[in-house]
């Protein structure tokens, strides 16, 4: 029967909750779904906005930069034009003679420099290039400029602003010269712009830590000293494109090959002279605020994505946990149902089989008796035959009794049709149970021992219910020996006259019960056995039966040593429960059978 039970149990496993892995799969699916449904759109929108914002901000910054460069260029142009206009005014309003008068040129020089020391020196030169008058820090009165480039230019054009050159004084400078015609006479008024002041003027622009502003001429020669590297009159490494748009701004990506890598470069072409204003700034500085805003933006975006992810994981874990609990619960219920129906069908089956077996055995018994009757009436000489015959007859009787006992136990086991209070000899009852269980325990190396009180009074109780209790407890005890090659289960009875009841003890040498489980083992569905093996109902059924029989069940356990269940059963149920059992009251009528 045992083997049968194990066999029929196998299909149950398919009803067990899905494997652990599938929960992990579910978890992954849920998390993925949440991520796809919330984080991905969030990130897409976030990134999209960011890119859009970047583009927008960059355009605005570049435009502002361009505006600034153009303004500054115009400002420099304006300055040069102003100086030229002043010179032109002086030349037009004075005659050569006026200017040659002592103090007169000095007067003009001071007037022109009243606001700022814009010009370094001032000179009047005749048409042959000889200095007629000069105010300035250098001693240039004897210099002849007839062969100088600027002299030729000014004679040709009437107004000339030169590039930076060294000249006689051997210092970088540039001049503005105007030609004045007085009848046949021509003379030139020439001013040198203060290089230092001009540089301050050119650099008078908000360009931050990394910025620099300088001028180059059409040949790409520095017209002012740049802030970083290079000096005035050196060849600049900036490519001078032919005069095109008056203003342009270029943003260079960071790559090491270009001299402008990672920089924003603005260019502005002055018309007169043809100089190019170059404004450079590190890209990172120009876009500093935008970059910071972007960074903050992205940090917030990713933080919220992260928090959604974390929340998703937690919620999913929680939900999967719930699902898992439900599944476990359902599986347990399912199992319990299966077990119950299995027990019921086993019960029915065994009852039928037992009944059918009893009839032929009864016939065998009558045949035996007939033979015995016959035997007694005939005289048989052969003593050996006589002996053999009689011992065979005894064997037949013994084996028939054995059949009867087996079917009897089977029937008792399956009998649960109705609760019936009857008088029970517990010792005999225990012997019966042991008899029934012995076959099972023997195969697992466990001995069933009994220690029975000989002076045990009969009690009023329900034997089929008690049988269930015993079967459950002994099954548990057998299970507790799993992994141990041998062990024993001792069942003892003891009459306690004071308590007016009987103490039954079932002690095993199994694994024992963990102390943290002790107060939960009677709970329904509490089990430490894997799903499919234990329903966790055994002890709770025992508990409810014993309570129903007005008794008590307690447990003592030493982990590793063993467990002892102690059941107290009152001698009679009547005292405490008058009306209820009175109705069924078949105990009297069942007496004769006992």
């Amino acid at each position: 029967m045992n083997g049968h039970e194990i066999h029929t149990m196998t299909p149950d496993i398919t009803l067990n909750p899905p494997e652990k892995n599938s929960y992990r799969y579910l978890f992954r699916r849920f998390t993925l779904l949440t991520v796809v449904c919330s984080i991905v759109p969030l990130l897409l929108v976030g990134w999209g906005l960011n890119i859009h914002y970047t583009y927008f901000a960059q355009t605005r910054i570049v435009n502002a930069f361009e505006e600034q460069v153009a303004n500054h260029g115009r400002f420099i142009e304006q300055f040069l034009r102003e100086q030229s206009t002043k010179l032109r005014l002086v030349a037009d309003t004075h005659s050569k003679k006026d200017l040659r008068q002592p103090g007169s040129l000095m007067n003009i020089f001071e007037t022109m420099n009243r606001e700022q020391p814009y010009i370094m020196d001032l000179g009047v030169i005749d048409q042959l290039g000889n200095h007629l008058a000069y105010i300035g820090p250098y001693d240039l009165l004897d210099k002849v400029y007839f062969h100088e480039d600027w002299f030729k230019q000014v004679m040709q054009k009437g107004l000339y602003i030169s590039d930076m050159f060294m000249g006689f004084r051997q210092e970088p400078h540039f001049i503005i010269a105007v030609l004045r015609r007085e009848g046949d006479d021509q003379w030139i008024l020439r001013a040198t712009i203060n290089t230092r002041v001009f540089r301050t003027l050119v650099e008078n622009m908000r360009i931050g830590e990394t910025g620099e502003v300088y001028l180059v001429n059409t040949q790409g020669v520095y017209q002012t000293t740049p802030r970083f590297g290079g000096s005035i009159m050196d060849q600049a490494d900036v490519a001078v494109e032919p005069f095109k748009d008056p203003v342009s701004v270029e943003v260079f990506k960071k790559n090491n090959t270009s001299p402008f890598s990672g920089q924003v470069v603005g260019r502005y072409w002055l018309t007169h002279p043809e100089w190019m204003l170059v404004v450079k700034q590190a890209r990172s500085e120009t876009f500093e605020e935008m970059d910071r805003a972007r960074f903050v933006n992205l940090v917030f975006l990713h933080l919220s994505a992260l928090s959604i992810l974390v929340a998703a994981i937690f919620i999913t874990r929680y939900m999967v946990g719930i699902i898992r609990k439900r599944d476990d619960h359902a599986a347990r219920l399912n199992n319990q149902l299966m077990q119950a129906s299995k027990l019921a069908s086993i019960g029915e089956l065994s009852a039928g089989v037992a009944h059918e077996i009893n009839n032929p055995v009864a016939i065998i018994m009558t045949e035996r008796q007939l033979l015995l009757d016959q035997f007694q009436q005939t005289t048989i000489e052969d003593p050996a035959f006589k002996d053999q015959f009689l011992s065979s007859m005894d064997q037949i009787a013994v084996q028939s009794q054995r059949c009867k006992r087996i079917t009897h136990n089977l029937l008792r086991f399956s009998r649960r049709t109705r609760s019936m209070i009857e008088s029970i000899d517990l010792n005999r009852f225990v012997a019966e149970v042991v008899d029934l269980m012995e076959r099972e325990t023997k195969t697992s190396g466990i001995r069933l021992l009994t220690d029975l009180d000989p002076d045990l009074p009969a009690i009023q109780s329900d034997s089929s219910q008690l049988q269930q209790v015993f079967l459950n407890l002994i099954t548990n005890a057998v299970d507790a020996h799993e992994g141990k090659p041998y062990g024993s289960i001792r069942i003892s009875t003891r009459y306690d006259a004071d308590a007016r009841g009987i103490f039954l003890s079932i002690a095993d040498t199994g694994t024992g019960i963990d102390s943290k489980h002790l107060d939960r083992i009677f709970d329904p569905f509490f089990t430490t056995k894997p799903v499919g093996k234990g329903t966790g109902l055994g002890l709770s059924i025992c508990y409810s039966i014993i309570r129903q029989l007005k008794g008590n069940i307690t447990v003592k356990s030493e982990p590793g040593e063993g467990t002892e269940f102690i059941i107290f059963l009152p001698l009679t149920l009547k005292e405490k429960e008058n009306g209820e059992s009175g109705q069924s009251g078949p105990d009297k009528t069942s007496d004769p059978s006992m």
Partner: protein
Amino acid sequence: MKGSKILLVDDEIVFTTNMSRLLVNRGYQVTAVNSGDAAVQELEKDDFDVVVLDLKMPGMDGIATLKEIKKLDLFTQTLILTGHGSIDSALDAVRLGAYDYLTKPCEIDDLVSKIECAWQKKDEHVKEEMQENVQKIIESPHSVFDLYPSKDKKK
């Protein structure tokens, strides 16, 4: 009591033939039938001391047969023989007025001793009844023929 009349009711023919031979060997007068209906008919025809009745039979089963027998209102005692699968119904039968029950398979000696007990019970009943009747006759004698109940009927 040797010579007691016994009615054996069981659907297993082999069982009834064997059992009746055994009981005859032990000095009883045995009639064997194989169904409840036949048993009731037999009881209507004839007097019996003890009926040995199997519970599980096709057609009219033991309990129904017992009820029918009770209706006949006889002194006859009934012993229930059960395959034990129906122990609950055996107890029912006892409650319905069967004298006792036995589980199959049983030793012939057990059966004989129960039959003896049943016979004694029947005998007591009969004697009580007779005493009552004698008392009645002493108190108000009408007819001497009332002294012995005709057949085994109580009244």
